[in-house]
């Protein structure tokens, strides 16, 4: 396992621990943050769409196991989120600060919205009530934590992009996978 993989593994483990250990006790009006979402977003940004959706699936599965909701629901959602972040967010992070923050906010909103839809389909929540009391405040809460992670993500992505460009120019060969992503 190379350094990058270790970093991702540590990231997922930390998010899982935070989700179990901290998230229930920092709820505001019953709304807890979703650290597994952050793990999926970071994985998507750092690893690209393929590994992003795989790690997103893993994060979602761990989230489902720690709750009483349908197993597979958050796995489904974070698979999509990890993929999308891998496709789009890497480019977004190159731009000014507003777009990445906006992307994190959208990711959080999509996650919470899809979750309330899935739970409503399973008859576990009332959709409108969940929308008002959980989705919107949950989105804000997740976006706040995502915003706090943004500088770290940006620095890591900048470093990885630089290494990729440098390796291309040095070898003179087209190296498809330098395996930093």
């Amino acid at each position, binding site marked *: 396992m190379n350094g990058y993989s270790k970093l991702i593994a540590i990231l997922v483990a930390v998010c899982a621990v935070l989700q179990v*250990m*901290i998230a*229930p006790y*920092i709820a505001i009006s019953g709304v807890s943050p979703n650290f597994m979402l952050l793990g999926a977003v970071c994985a998507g940004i750092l690893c690209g769409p393929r590994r992003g959706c795989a790690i997103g699936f893993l994060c979602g599965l761990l989230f489902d196991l720690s709750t009483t909701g349908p197993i*597979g*629901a958050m796995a489904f959602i974070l698979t999509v989120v990890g993929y999308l972040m891998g496709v789009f967010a890497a480019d977004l992070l190159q731009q000014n600060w507003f777009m990445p923050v906006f992307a994190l906010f959208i990711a959080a909103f999509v996650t919470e919205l899809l979750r309330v839809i899935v739970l409503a389909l399973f008859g576990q929540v009332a959709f409108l009530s969940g929308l008002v009391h959980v989705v919107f405040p949950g989105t804000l809460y997740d976006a706040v934590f995502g915003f706090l992670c943004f500088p770290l993500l940006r620095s890591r992505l900048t470093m990885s992009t630089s290494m990729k460009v440098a390796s291309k120019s040095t070898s003179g060969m087209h190296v498809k996978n330098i*395996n930093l992503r």
Partner: protein
Amino acid sequence: MATLGSTRRKTRSIKLGSPWQVLVALLLVSVLLMTFWARESSAGSGPLLTVRKAYTVVTSPLSRLGAVLGTPFRAIGNAVGNSAMSGDDIQALKDENEELRSTVMQLEEYRQEEQRLAALLDIRDAYDLESVGARVIGRTSDSYNRTITLDKGSDDGIAAGMPVMSPQGLIGQVESVTSSQATVRLLFDTKGTVSVMIQSSRSEGVLHGSYDGLLYLDYIPITQQVLEGDVVLTSGSGGTYPKGIMIGQVVSVTDKTNDVYHTIVVTPLAGDTLFEEVLIVTGRQTEVTYEPKVSPEASISPSPEDEDAVGRDQEMEYHEG
């Protein structure tokens, strides 16, 4: 499919397929998991639920640690949540709080009333009296008259002359009645008199009230021994009060030179308590037997030698007649 580079630089990578393939595969797996979970949740058991339980067991130490570490954050969360409460919510909570305070005070009142009524029932059972319960609805503000007004009258079978008791003992006599009310003259009143006797010596005398709020026992000859602590009972003389109702205890005995009778001060058992519920004795008993609730070990038959001890110990059984 694994491919190995044959160039000077080895590149080693495991191709997982295109991102689209991975995405679709994982989404299908997610949907399958949800389907299996739906079946297992209706059945109540299954491999997925077992995995969830195992995950819960594995992470429970972390959860307990989080409970300890999260305490200060929980307080912050509550503070933030409370600060976000609307004014209407806060006002509703305040109103509910006031209502609950009022309810608590009312319940305390009911509790105390229940205690008083239970004590009344005890005294009624102890004397085995025919009686009617009544509430005090008025008190005199006249310094010269000590009376109370009750909420029962002739319609309830109350008549003038009936004794009135509190849980502690005799307090007075019905002086006048209307159809729905009765006026009771208390023992403290100067106009009220009760024929009494001292339990230990059986000496009979007359008890009356005074302006200084004390009860005086008259006509006990100086030759009769009277001690502080002696119990004073109704003697039944005159037919006003049944014999044997406890009134009070002797608190002082004063003898002056050439006095024929003792000067005895009696403190009533009822004291100057502000009664709220009383018993009006309606029965025509001429004599009562006092049988308080005692434990079997405490009850003894009094012997003549122990009359003093019996008279002082009100928890012992007493039979007269």
